[in-house]
């Protein structure tokens, strides 16, 4: 079973991985693999592919543990970034079809920002709903500009401008 994030020392486990102790990687896996798989599956929309991504992510964690620098960000954040970028590289390299199960997945995709605490969610609340949807579809679903434009029925140029301005607003809000 995984512990609440605040009770699990991610950094100590990464440091122990760096010393070659397999059990630390196992503990990180037990702690975080369901959430990492959730993130990967939402991006690549296929369970087997998502498991491949998480597999590759844990190998990267194992190999990269000694180079991990806690000054650059949290150990937990590092694990998520690593997994997201593997999945994003995959979907961009394989330029996913816009058709297919796109609409079905998108419609079941619910965003309940209010159920989540944290600064980013408060800042998102301040964006107009359509602009907020652009940011969430991009980050959580891995939609490209074109996919977001298709999904929202909004011109591509407008989507690009919305995203650019929303990111600026988020940076100002979050500091």
């Amino acid at each position: 079973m995984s512990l609440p994030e605040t009770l699990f020392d991610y950094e100590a486990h990464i440091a122990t991985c760096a010393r070659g102790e397999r059990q630390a990687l196992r503990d990180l896996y037990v702690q975080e693999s369901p959430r990492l798989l959730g993130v990967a599956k939402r991006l690549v929309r296929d369970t087997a592919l998502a498991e491949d991504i998480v597999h590759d992510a844990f190998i990267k964690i194992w190999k990269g543990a000694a180079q991990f620098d806690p000054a650059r960000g949290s150990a937990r954040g590092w694990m998520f970034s690593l997994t997201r970028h593997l999945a994003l590289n995959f979907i961009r390299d394989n330029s996913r079809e816009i058709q297919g199960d796109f609409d079905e997945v998108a419609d079941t995709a619910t965003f309940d920002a209010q159920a989540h605490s944290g600064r980013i969610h408060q800042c998102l609340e301040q964006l107009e709903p359509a602009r907020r949807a652009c940011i969430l579809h991009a980050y959580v679903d891995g939609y490209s500009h074109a996919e977001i434009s298709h999904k929202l029925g909004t011109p591509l140029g407008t989507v690009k401008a919305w995203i650019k301005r929303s990111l600026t607003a988020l940076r100002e809000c979050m500091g």
Partner: protein
Amino acid sequence: MISKPTNETPEERDELASEYVLGTLSAELRTQVQQRLRDEPELRSAVDAWERRLLGLADLAGPHTPSPHLWQRIERSVNNVTRPPSPIAAQSLSWWNLLPLWRGLAGAGLAATLLLGALMLTQTTVKPTYLVVLVGPQDKAPGWVIQASNPREIQLIPLGVIEVPADKALEFWTKADGWQGPVSLGLVKPGQTLSIPLDKLPPLQPNQLFELTLENPQGSPIGKPTGPIQFIGRAVKVI
């Protein structure tokens, strides 16, 4: 190698970093960013900041339980990864590697004794409230001790003389939980004992991170660590 466009402004760089982290860049631009990240500390620092800002959104995806085979696959692959043998890993160790800690504390004890002697000469009795042992990230050998007798000033004490390449300098950094990024405490010469006032920073906290990185002789050009970590440790409150 893809080098950065010569006319790129910091705003354009931050925009690129933000869309890289958000995920909206094309495959081609993603590859370019990933290549530039290897040797552009400014871009790396911008990407790191965006990763921290947006991380909270990852929770929205919802967890998905992996199949029972996934761990076995990972374990098999890990067995095939060849790693340079680590001298510490070869020994039988408990969860935390105690030897360097004790070595460090022994060094700190010696340093504290010397300091106490010095303090007795100056007729002051001060008890350290925080202690940090800075160890090498790979070999965990202690190199420096930091002690603070009040949360507003720290002493950095070398446990030996270390080698720094002629064209490089050691820069001292700290970051407490919840800070956006590390803050520079200035350049440090190998073997130098330093007293550093923390008057521009919040008081010391337990678990506060300290590190020494290898930077250019004038220090990091961007105010964030860019070079490899030489020594690292966290503050422990002394009871």
